[in-house]
Each structure stands twice: as structure tokens, then as C-alpha cells.
């Protein structure tokens, strides 16, 4: 089965990203396909490359990056939500004259159409949020 996952909250403040991560991992382990993980609202903060969590706690961002690499996942940060919250890739950096870019490996910034497409193409869309 093909799953679309929507993550509406950022790392640490809510459990949503953790729940989504464990669900995604379990689905992959069971042989399902993850069409896309789409991060919206504060969920775009899951894609920040500048996170430095304490050593004795999980690294939510890195965990997603590693899962993406291991399974060739498509992790998408909504561009409108990202612009509001300061998630910037190299294109956005150039376009808006920012000092740097901060999207973690495995994530890409794209439009809400990617979420709609996930709804159309996946067999199931599961939403994690507040």
C-alpha cells in the first residue's frame, strides 16, 4: 500500500513528528511504500539543519534525514510555511537575499501542490499534528 504522511508540528514541542517517524518506519519495515512525507505549519521546522539537541536525547531532524537516505524518501517542506518560519534552501536564499540556507539533508522545499498530489496518489493519507 502507498502512504502519504502529513506532519503539522515541529520537532520536540509536540510528539507529532516522533509519531509520524515511527509510523513511517513501521510502514516501510512492513513493505509498504511511502509516497511522500509532507511537512506543513510548524512541521517545516523538522527540516532545519541548525538543530543541536542534547546528546542524551533523540535527534529528530537527523533521524528523518537518515530514514530518507536509507529508503529514498521524499520529505517535502511546504514553501509558504517555510518562508514564514525561516527555512531556506539555496534557491530561496538567492531569491530572497538571505545570509544562508538551512535545509537539512533529505528534505526539499516545494509547494502545497505536493501535498494535494500525495492525497491523490497515495492509498492512505495519515495526518500527525496537534
Amino acid at each position: 500500500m502507498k502512504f502519504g504522511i502529513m506532519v503539522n508540528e515541529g520537532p520536540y514541542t509536540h510528539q507529532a513528528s516522533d509519531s509520524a517517524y515511527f509510523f513511517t518506519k513501521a510502514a516501510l519495515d512492513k513493505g509498504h511504500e511511502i509516497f511522500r512525507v509532507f511537512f506543513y505549519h510548524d512541521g517545516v521546522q523538522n527540516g532545519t539543519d541548525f538543530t543541536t539537541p542534547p546528546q542524551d536525547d533523540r535527534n529528530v531532524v537527523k533521524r528523518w534525514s537518515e530514514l530518507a537516505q536509507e529508503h529514498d524518501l521524499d520529505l517535502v517542506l511546504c514553501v509558504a510555511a517555510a518562508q514564514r518560519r525561516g527555512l531556506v534552501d539555496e534557491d530561496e536564499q538567492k531569491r530572497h537575499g538571505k545570509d544562508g540556507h538551512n535545509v537539512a539533508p533529505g528534505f526539499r522545499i516545494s509547494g502545497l501542490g505536493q501535498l494535494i498530489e500525495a492525497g491523490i496518489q497515495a492509498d492512505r493519507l495519515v495526518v500527525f499534528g496537534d
Partner: protein
Amino acid sequence: MLHIVNKSPFTTTSLESCLRVSKPGATILLIEDGVYGALDGSRVSDTVRAALADRTVCVLGVDAAARGIEGKVLDGIDVVDYDGFVDLVAANDGVQSWL
């Protein structure tokens, strides 16, 4: 249909709305802080127990254990793991997350 509730019944109306709107035959999965809805002896236990008559209610075991309530869940509530969560989503045509 699968309904997912992730908030305590004392914080939001999510569980209440879910119970009012879910149909007989539906499955309700309590995750994150939603697992508190599975606790026996609370102000909402009777409502949840009544739902068990025509719906399936499950609780995500790891979330209940994290909150120290795994042994205090209402009789009749199934405990599932993330594999079970995935299976529930696959088995149900619709998924509603009561955020």
C-alpha cells in the same frame, strides 16, 4: 473507518467529537496524550466503555507505557504497537486524525 485521537479528553473535545461522530463498526485509536482517554475510573470512562459496545477502541501501547498507564486501561480496549497502527490504517478505507 479509523479515527485517531491524540489529545487527553480533559484538554480538548477531540475524543468527545470523535465518539459523537464515529459510526458503529469504526475503530478508534488513541495515541500520544490521547491514551489518557483509555484510563479506567475517569470522568469519561463510562462514555468510552459505552463506545466499546459497537466500536473497536485501541491504545498505542508505547504511548500508554510512556505515561505509566498501560496496566490501568479499560477492559475491552486493545493495545497495539506501531505495526498494529500501520495495519489499522491499511485495513480501513478512511483515516480521520482528530487534532
